[in-house]
């Protein structure tokens, strides 16, 4: 008998757009059991191959069916340090769920029938967190004489630090911002990843003995060379991709045109939605346009809706994307949530230029229509601009969410660090070591804009190389 996939409960769209609280509610025990029981426990599970860190998905789901949630939790933790985070933000429909045998062959993302692995992961992760299953134990051993500097406290940095600290290695994490978490803090809105989940993981590392040094920008406050001189045996660079791309079109510097990073940083990191209690302002418009089709575009659209709602304005946010919905790189769930909440979509639209008023405020986006051509290097069909198809869209606020590039401050300050044409750091893919001996890198600074779990996978590999190098020391 075919069982129906269990969708996680959600706060109703009308209720949730008025605040920044989490949208997706956790599975209840019954829901988790019911969803886990749909798993076919394949002899040769395909899902595991779809996970960038190779979680034994079959096993952890089996443990859930046996109501042995602790074992499920530890099974995931063998490969993934942050199940509560990944269970919320992983694009499962492009990874494990897409690989699931229940997904129709050849589809570009998971079928609805595919097991909701991410919701089960979140269930097990939250169970472990709520029951304090994994007590951090500070170790003192022969590895404790080694000190490692981790630069950046985003997903890659946190993961690497955890791996090292669990072995007894002393770790200092340097973070340039005043708060830890990197993109998990400044980028992902709390309605997708609540801060208490992030704080729990950071607190866990603290208890493991990891030392966090905020307001410290390596490359400016200090250099790689000086870190070595201070006695760090190895350095891990988890710098992230935080440099916003712009469209490069006329009028893009008009007021109220934000990069997605600025818009989200103001709202998430600086809590601008609580202005004036929090002192950082953010502007909101009556007609908001978001340019782009990725997760950050969806985040920006949904943040904009919430700002409009909080201000008592009518909701009017439109995403413009140059391809169609099928090619959008965003998680399907985010697209669905955005639609439910009232975000409008305009597909096959290519921005041409912005026009503004005499105060320098944006008033219009002039666009061209496009159509889809042949697939490009990303495998998605390339948008082709249709000539003489120009039209105008009114807007008084626009967010540009068309990609992020590698952070440059440390790279520019470190001539010996080899980079590729995209300014990403070049590493030995097996060891994650950079062109500087003893300096490793992982996450978006190596792979370009990717997922959090991919960043963690790289960080783990780097951590193991660091541990191995100490074994030989």
């Amino acid at each position: 008998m075919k069982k129906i996939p269990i969708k996680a409960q959600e706060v109703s769209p009308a209720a949730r757009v008025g605040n920044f609280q989490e949208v997706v509610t956790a599975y209840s025990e019954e829901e988790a059991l019911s969803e886990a029981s749909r798993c076919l426990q394949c002899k040769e599970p395909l899902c595991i191959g779809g996970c960038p860190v190779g979680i034994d998905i079959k096993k952890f789901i089996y443990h859930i069916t046996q109501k042995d949630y602790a074992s499920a939790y530890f099974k995931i933790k063998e490969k993934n340090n942050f199940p509560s985070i990944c269970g919320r933000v992983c694009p499962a429909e492009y990874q494990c769920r897409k690989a699931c045998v229940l997904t129709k062959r050849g589809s570009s993302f998971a079928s609805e029938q595919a097991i909701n692995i991410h919701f089960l992961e979140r269930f097990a992760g939250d169970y472990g967190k709520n029951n304090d299953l994994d007590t951090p134990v500070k170790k003192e051993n022969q590895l404790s004489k080694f000190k490692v500097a981790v630069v950046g406290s985003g997903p890659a940095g946190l993961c690497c630090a955890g791996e090292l600290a669990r072995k007894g290695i002393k770790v200092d994490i340097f973070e340039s911002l005043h708060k830890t978490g990197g993109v998990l803090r400044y980028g992902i809105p709390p309605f997708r990843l609540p801060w208490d989940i992030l704080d729990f993981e950071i607190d866990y590392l603290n208890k493991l003995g990891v030392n966090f040094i905020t307001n410290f920008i390596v490359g400016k406050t200090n250099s790689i060379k000086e870190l070595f001189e201070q006695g760090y045996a190895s350095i891990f660079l988890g710098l992230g991709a935080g440099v916003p791309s712009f469209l490069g079109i006329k009028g893009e510097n008009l007021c109220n045109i934000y990069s997605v990073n600025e818009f989200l940083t103001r709202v998430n990191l600086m809590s601008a939605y609580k202005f004036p209690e929090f002192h950082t302002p953010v502007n909101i418009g009556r007609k908001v346009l978001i340019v782009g089709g990725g997760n950050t575009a969806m985040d920006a659209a949904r943040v904009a809706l919430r700002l409009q709602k909080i201000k008592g304005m009518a909701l009017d946010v439109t995403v413009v994307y140059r391809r169609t919905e099928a090619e959008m790189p965003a998680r399907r769930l985010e697209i669905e949530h955005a639609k439910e909440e009232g975000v409008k979509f305009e597909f096959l639209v290519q921005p041409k230029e912005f026009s503004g008023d005499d105060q320098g405020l944006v008033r219009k986006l002039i666009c061209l229509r496009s159509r889809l051509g042949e697939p490009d290097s990303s495998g998605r069909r390339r948008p082709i601009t249709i000539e003489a198809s120009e039209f105008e869209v009114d807007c008084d606020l626009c967010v540009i969410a068309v990609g992020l590039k590698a952070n440059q401050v440390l790279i520019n300050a470190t001539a010996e660090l080899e980079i590729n044409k995209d300014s990403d750091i070049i590493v030995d893919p097996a060891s994650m070591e950079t062109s500087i001996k003893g300096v490793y890198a992982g996450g978006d600074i190596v792979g370009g804009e990717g997922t959090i779990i991919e960043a963690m996978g790289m960080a783990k590999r780097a951590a193991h190389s660091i541990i191995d190098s100490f074994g030989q020391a």
Partner: protein
Amino acid sequence: MKIISKEIIANAAGVKIVKMSLLSPEISRKAFPGQFVVVMVNEKGERIPLTIVDTDSAAGIFSIIFQEAGLTTKVLGALNVGDRLYALVGPLGHATEIKNYGKVILVGGGVGIAEILPVARALKQAGNYLVSILGVKNKDLLILESELKNTSDQLYIMTDDGSAGRKGFTTDMLRELLSKDKYDLIYSVGPIPMMKMAVRISKEYQVKTWVSLNALMVDATGMCGCCRVTVYGQVKFSCVDGPDFDGQGVDWEELEKRNKAYSAQEKHICHHFPATETQ
């Protein structure tokens, strides 16, 4: 992050300028003239950039000078010796390019005078002949006069009301100097209209002019693009590409408008926290 000393160096006609020295061995050791720090006064505060005016690496301290304008600078000005800032990061931005250019004119307007002092000292040390022009509303708002007198070969003071030095604008003096003699470089910091006028004049005389821009910033490490400015048609981030730029290429109208993007909120928040206005 601890405040080591605090001095109100000007307080007249509704303008209050404060000098503070802050404890940070790392920043004081690393800072070069032209660089800045980002501070947050408290957990709910904004991140604002402030130029590093002076460093004492032996003592591990550096100083900032700011005019109380918005809420953040007012709250900062209300802090006292021994208080700690919530966040302090730096040194940020590129240092000013220091070498022996020859004859250099420094133009400082208002609190911008504070920002030319470290550059003046470094340029002097590099062997330049320095002419400084300081411009303020009136004599009570003149800051760092003796420091710049000691550093400069010639010093001119311009006031709006003639209460000190000569009556007129810094740019009047700039034009006068340029018309009489040849100079190799101009370095100008102050209100946008002043810098805009300075580069208009310097362009006529074809003298390269560096300006230090005061664009709005959030992270100030190249991640948000709030501080983007157009220089010779290219989009630059003031925080990581600047803050010094060739002033003759800057799109001043755009910068002026972008710097007003939050003026309504600024008024609102100062009204919302009236207590700080009286401090």
